């Protein structure tokens, strides 16, 4: 793939991630039914439930992984791609991509959490866990941002203006 193609693909992936971000957070990702009580949980709803149960540290981990990291990734990638071809903030943009690579995959915690809960939540009326459409948007957003981070290599930040425009 050419460098220009990489930039265009990364932009498309980030745009896809931005589109998926709102439904991923507004739609429920799972329904937990335990002994007659039914809870439809969004990503932030799950965090609030953990917090209200007195598990603030766990809630903080899930909040950081499921809400802060994806948002930071989308904003950071948008910033890096908007500045593509310009000479400003190059070192900072390179460092930002490095940090994104380190923390980016942690946003998968929520999807894995759902898979573990679905596995044990097959006890009929006593306990059941169902996935909801929000998880598809959430997973798509994660895929888009992970792929964008892989497609847009740090060396592209340092291309000369004319090469970047080509």
């Amino acid at each position: 793939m050419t460098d220009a193609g990489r930039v265009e693909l990364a932009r498309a992936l980030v745009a896809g991630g931005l589109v998926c971000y709102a439904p991923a957070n507004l739609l429920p990702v799972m329904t937990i039914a335990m002994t007659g009580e039914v809870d439809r949980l969004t990503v932030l709803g799950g965090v609030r439930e953990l917090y209200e149960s007195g598990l603030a540290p766990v809630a903080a981990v899930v909040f950081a992984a499921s809400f802060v990291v994806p948002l930071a990734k989308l904003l950071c990638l948008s910033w890096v791609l908007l500045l593509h071809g310009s000479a400003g903030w190059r070192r900072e943009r390179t460092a930002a991509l490095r940090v994104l690579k380190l923390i980016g995959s942690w946003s998968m915690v929520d999807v894995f959490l759902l898979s573990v809960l679905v596995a044990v939540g097959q006890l009929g009326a006593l306990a059941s866990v169902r996935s909801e459409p929000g998880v598809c948007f959430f997973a798509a957003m994660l895929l888009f941002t992970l792929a964008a981070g892989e497609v847009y290599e740090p060396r592209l930040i340092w291309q000369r203006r004319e090469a970047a425009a080509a």
Partner: protein
Amino acid sequence: MRRRAGQNFRHGQPMLAIPPPGRAGPPRLMGADGKQRCPVCGAVMARRELRPGQELRCRRCGSTVRRAAGELLAPLCWALATTGLIVWGLAVCTPILTFEIAGREQSNWIWTGIAGLAAQGYWPVAVLVFFSAMAAPVLHLAAVWYVSGALSSGGRWPGAERAARLARAVAPWSLTPVFAVACGVAVVKLEMLGRVEWHQGAFWVLALAACSFALARLLDDRGPGEARGG
């Protein structure tokens, strides 16, 4: 000296060079003028000898250009990858935990969650979990095992460069450490609702996460995407 696939020698030290995906070989560190350049920003860098464990960092962009691996990098990676492959098999074959509520219980393997998601019609999410929690870790371990085995033995193993490219391509999708954390969070959540009992599988998942994490650190791809010594 003739170079073997995926192997390079500098100052008598083996270098584990894993080229980034989509590229035939490692990024060019030498410019046409014979000077060493940073593969990320192209800055000219002073050449200097590195002791094992030292790294050469670009002053302009902050990327790590070269890291002296030392003699033991390839054997260490090979040992970790071998352990990881065995542990992967154990983690997949043994239950992680059992959840019990009102006398009824349900066990959880890595794959039961995937099967559950697929049964509920969420195929894309099931495929994503399957790939990142099961397939990518074993592909990454197998590819690293092959490349580091070739480097450790000093033999000419066919397809080592292809295996190195595969290792680099799947590394970002190998998310066992994240899966291990998710298991911990799930247990905390489930304990609010019923009784949870850990099984051996949890230990193997944790061990697999440790192997994957250690390999990721050893084959750290800062900068251009190179884990190499020098």
